[in-house]
């Protein structure tokens, strides 16, 4: 036998056949098919036992449920945030910020894991230990206190009613500093309006039971109070074949609320309050108002000063207001009559579209309108919330000797971050040496972001207590990691506009990132480190203990923590109690008058004092619900357009940052071309300015500017430019950072007449084309 080509071929054929007779080929094909399906860098989440834990998102007020999974190897982790169907207000619904909360929780690239010390010169951050960090802050504060400069330390927080907020106040007060300030919110404006007119600081709107709702420029469906609760009410208003309630939206833009409303009354920006007053006058003239209001204090003239009715008759002419507001008078009259006729009608005021706290006199006007409708204390009307049964964290502390930075020139003031920053930067009456930023990311959220940026830059020692490496942390000398609300303790109080009081408690559901501590625990540790009055003012082991003490009246703490909320059962219907000096509803606020007169005398002095507080109407109008032209109108020819925000739950509402998922669902009318903010303008206005869709424009106010891409939207009021909120972060990872620009950087904050609250609803701007 020769071993030649033919033999070899036979052998080879045999071998090939043999291989095919073995499982090699099909097996290899099969394995290859499987192999092609493996992409090793695609994560494989671990399975495990599922559990749900109830909690409340303190940023949105939503009753949430964390879906937890207990993996055999990886342990307990949260995989989703869902709605809590048992929560009386949000009943299972969520907003995007809730549903995507895990993206802020689980991201090593944006969370602060350990205390960090920043070198101001180089900007380099170095990790330090907690004791070192506490020594640094404690030492700094102690030194100031020792030198009698405690007042030159200030702390900024987000929510004064939260336990952490209370702790912050007590700590600073014990230290001897009057400077604690919080984010201004419409809750304060509402509290003032309520106090002045009814003596009740906690007023809410019984939206769910109303069947005729008139909303005065407040974004009911884009972020109002607890957004889910409002939506639940809204859902009840809709129906087939006819809607269950009639919603009227008065605002300059065809927003979601305006579109979903049964009627949209497009008005000039800032004229909403005037429209409310015009409605009052129409109701009076047509005789369709609740006669009980005639017994209110200030219905008629008092003490030789104008009463509400006289004011309306003198200054609010329906035709004039209609033309001033740019609305059709017959439509307005028709709507007013329908409002008056409806059995459960309510007029709603609230935060502006730009997220500002609202104008005091507008709120008062809307309250007056409700009073005329006679819905105070009625189902579907304006109701007073039961105060939350929360205990104080301790006895009263001595008042600091120095006057506070902000608001000392006003008869009453709400300590807010903006005024504090303005005063501190001006050095009037003194400057700051130490600044503690407790959450809130003020450098981004402002309200006037440029100002907060300057404050952080110019204050010698800045401490940021934050879960994230955000814009504020980036400017701080010392960054102290705090917990995300899913991994730490904390609480939240009744949201704006809610008809019932509602307390939310969140507890640690998953293990906190590295060395993060609850912000409250950090404050307690600081108090311990400082010792003396500070330690005495906050005698708690930890935040949980403080929470337990504070919420004692709500029952067993452990149970409360598991339920996650406490809520007033039903709105307080029935005759509203008026805790006013007159014991009646006050259309002319005696409280306000007394407060103002305390500083000034009567007559001429009073008028002067009132005008000094920014009330253009003088003493005759100052104590009445009345309308004043917004400051943005007076910006002059250099800023001919009016800028307002176009809010959306897809961007943000409140102090928490936008999440990657929220960025992802932004339409291209908000964010376009990877990183361009998009602003809206009416096509006619754009034509007048020789601008076209897609142009890059510079929107400039006297306080700052932003560049953006222009989109034309027929639903935008002429003469205005609408800017999305909450974009333009420099932090929060590649999915969020460097997208768009920050609305708060172009905003000009002004002082609300009388209340002095910072307002920024409208800003005078110029818009011109730029290259880009």
């Amino acid at each position, binding site marked *: 036998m020769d071993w030649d080509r033919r033999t070899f071929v036979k052998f080879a054929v045999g071998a090939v056949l043999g291989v095919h007779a073995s499982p090699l080929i099909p097996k290899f*094909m099969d394995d290859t*098919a499987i192999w*092609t*399906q493996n992409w090793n860098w695609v994560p494989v989440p671990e399975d495990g036992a599922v559990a749900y834990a109830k909690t409340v998102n303190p940023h949105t007020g939503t009753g949430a449920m964390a879906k937890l999974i207990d993996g055999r190897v990886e342990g307990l982790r949260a995989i989703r945030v869902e709605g809590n169907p048992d929560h009386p207000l949000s009943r299972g619904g969520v907003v995007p910020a809730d549903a995507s909360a895990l993206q802020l929780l689980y991201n090593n690239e944006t969370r602060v894991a350990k205390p960090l010390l920043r070198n101001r010169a180089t900007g380099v951050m170095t990790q330090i230990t907690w004791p070192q960090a506490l020594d640094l802050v404690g030492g700094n504060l102690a030194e100031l206190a020792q030198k009698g400069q405690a007042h030159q330390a200030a702390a900024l927080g987000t929510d004064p009613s939260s336990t952490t907020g209370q702790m912050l106040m007590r700590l600073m007060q014990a230290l001897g500093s009057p400077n604690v300030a919080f984010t201004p919110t419409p809750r304060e404006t509402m509290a003032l309006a309520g106090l002045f007119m009814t003596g009740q600081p906690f007023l809410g709107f019984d939206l769910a039971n109303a069947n005729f709702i008139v909303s005065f420029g407040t974004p009911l469906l884009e972020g109002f109070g607890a957004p889910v609760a409002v939506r639940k009410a809204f859902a009840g208003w809709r129906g087939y074949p006819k809607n269950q309630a009639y919603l009227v939206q008065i605002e300059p833009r065809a927003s979601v609320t305006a579109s979903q409303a049964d009627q949209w009354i497009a008005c000039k920006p800032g004229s909403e309050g005037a429209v409310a007053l015009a409605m009052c006058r129409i109701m009076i003239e047509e005789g369709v108002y609740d006669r009980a209001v005639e017994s209110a204090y200030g219905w008629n003239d008092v003490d030789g000063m104008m009463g509400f009715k006289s004011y309306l008759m003198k200054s609010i002419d329906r035709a004039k207001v209609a033309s001033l507001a740019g609305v059709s008078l017959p439509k307005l009259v028709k709507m007013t009559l329908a409002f008056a006729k409806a059995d459960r009608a309510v007029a709603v005021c609230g935060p502006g579209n730009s997220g500002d706290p609202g104008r005091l006199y507008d709120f008062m006007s809307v309250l007056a309108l409700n009073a005329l409708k006679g819905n105070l204390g009625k189902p579907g009307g304006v109701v007073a919330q039961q105060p939350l049964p929360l205990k104080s964290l301790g006895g009263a502390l001595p008042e600091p000797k120095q006057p506070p930075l902000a608001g000392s020139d006003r008869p009453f003031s709400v300590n807010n971050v903006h005024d504090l920053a303005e005063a501190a930067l001006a050095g009037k009456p003194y400057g700051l040496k130490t600044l503690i930023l407790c959450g809130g990311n003020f450098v981004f959220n402002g309200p006037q972001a440029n100002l907060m940026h300057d404050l952080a830059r110019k204050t010698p020692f800045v401490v940021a207590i934050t879960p994230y490496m955000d814009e504020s942390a980036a400017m701080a000398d010392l960054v102290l990691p705090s917990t995300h609300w899913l991994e730490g303790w904390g609480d939240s109080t009744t949201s704006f506009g809610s008809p019932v009081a509602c307390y939310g408690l969140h507890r640690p559901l998953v293990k906190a990132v590295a060395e993060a501590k609850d912000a409250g625990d950090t404050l307690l540790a600081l108090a311990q480190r400082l010792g003396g009055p500070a330690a005495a003012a906050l005698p708690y082991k930890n935040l949980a203990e403080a929470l337990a003490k504070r919420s004692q009246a709500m029952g067993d703490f452990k149970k409360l923590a598991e339920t996650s909320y406490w809520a007033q059962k039903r709105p307080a219907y029935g005759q509203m109690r008026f805790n006013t000096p007159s014991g009646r509803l006050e259309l002319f606020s005696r409280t306000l008058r007394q407060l103002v007169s305390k500083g000034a005398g009567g007559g001429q002095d009073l008028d002067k004092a009132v005008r000094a507080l920014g009330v253009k109407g003088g003493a005759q109008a100052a104590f009445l619900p009345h309308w004043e032209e917004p400051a943005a109108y007076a910006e002059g020819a250099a800023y001919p357009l009016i800028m307002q925000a176009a809010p959306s739950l897809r961007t943000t509402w409140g102090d928490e940052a936008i999440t990657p998922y929220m960025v992802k669902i932004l339409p291209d009318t908000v964010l376009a071309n990877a990183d361009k903010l998009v602003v809206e303008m009416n096509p006619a206005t754009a034509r007048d300015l020789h601008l076209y869709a897609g142009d890059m424009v510079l929107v400039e106010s006297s306080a700052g500017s932003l560049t953006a891409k222009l989109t034309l939207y027929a639903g935008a009021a002429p003469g205005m430019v609408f800017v999305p909120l909450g974009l333009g972060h420099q932090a929060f990872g590649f999915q969020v950072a460097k997208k768009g620009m920050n609305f708060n950087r172009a905003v000009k904050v002004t002082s609300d007449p009388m209340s002095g609250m910072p307002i920024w609803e409208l800003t005078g701007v110029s818009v011109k084309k730029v290259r880009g």
Partner: protein
Amino acid sequence: MRRWFDDLPKYADDSSWWPNGTTRCRPEVFLFWLGLPLTIMAYFGLSAFLVLFKGLNQTNMNDYFAFGVWIVVDLAVIALGAGAFFTSFLNYIIGKTELKPIVNAAVLIGFICYTGAILMLGIDIGQPIRGWFGFWHANVHSMLTEVMFCITTYAIVLCIELLPSVLDNRRIGKVPEFGTFSHNLHTIMIVFAAAGTFLSFFHQGSLGGMFGVLYARPFAYRGHLGIWPMTFFLFVMSAIAAGPSFTTMVVMITEKITGKRLTSHKVKMLMGKISGWLLLVYMVCKSVDTLYWAFIYLPSKGLSVGQMYQAPYGSWLVWAELGLFGWLPAILLLTPRVRESYGLLFLAMLLNCIGVTLNRFIFTIQSLALPVMPFEKFFSYLPTWQEWGVASLVLGHGLLIFMLAYRYLPIFPQEPELNQR
């Protein structure tokens, strides 16, 4: 003293490989010109690497333009390559032996088109390593499955059909086994021609069917005849109308470049006539189909023809496709005087080929560009350089194969005779 490169011309002398009775350019000239396809291939290589390594984000395709220039080129070259099966069909099965002188060229062009198309399809899919799932886990209801099966098998058939030409190379043919094999192959070629015809008929049709079955895409959807949508037949018809034209055109271009006569003008005229008649039939059907679609089908879906053509894909496309590149070449090709003129014949065939390419472009891109939901936006699409790079594969590897084949294989049996001095 002998220098090292003195022997080079001897080594490079490849004249013994040239087909019998032909002359070819000098090796260095040939090598120089090889640079062109190699450059294109390098461009392709870079683009393909980027696409395979980084993913399809290197292209400008998106969820609205799920198909892009690659599919257009694929469809176009497969249609243009139809000359292979149809010429083989006429030659081997119908017995039109007059076409013999051009069959080899047709098969070669078909081979180039099909292999190019398959390679591109492999890059076009998001998971190239799973490309074979179309066979492994085939869905028999999908037109694309049919296309995949037929194209692949037909490419194999084309290899077999091309094999005799390779084996007939002067040097290879001298190996006795190869010679015998080649001879045997020639005798059974009719079987492969039949198989090729069958396969081609189906995949040409299925390519059209791919669009015609998209019943939720009003631009592409067409009524059915049996289980096949009208586009099935229209695609077959347009392919066999354009294929012979393209084959002849390539031959004519080669003639111009090489300065040699490769086939007699009679053959070309015959090819032109065949193309012309087929194109005429196709144009009649296509026109009827278009009218039906525009005036009966679309209105039934609440749409108007006007909506179908929006800038930049305006109504000029219809006029171009049906008029300038449709009826015009049909009439030209059917005019004997046009066929007799070398230049005019070329022009008519060129118009014909552009027409079929345009048709494939319209079906691929415009079908997708048209938003079906009334509130959707209208998008347009422009390929990236990477996409052009991959798309240029057909050109690059086509040139390369054609140059090599022309130089070494007896593709044109009439060449020696026509170029006798």
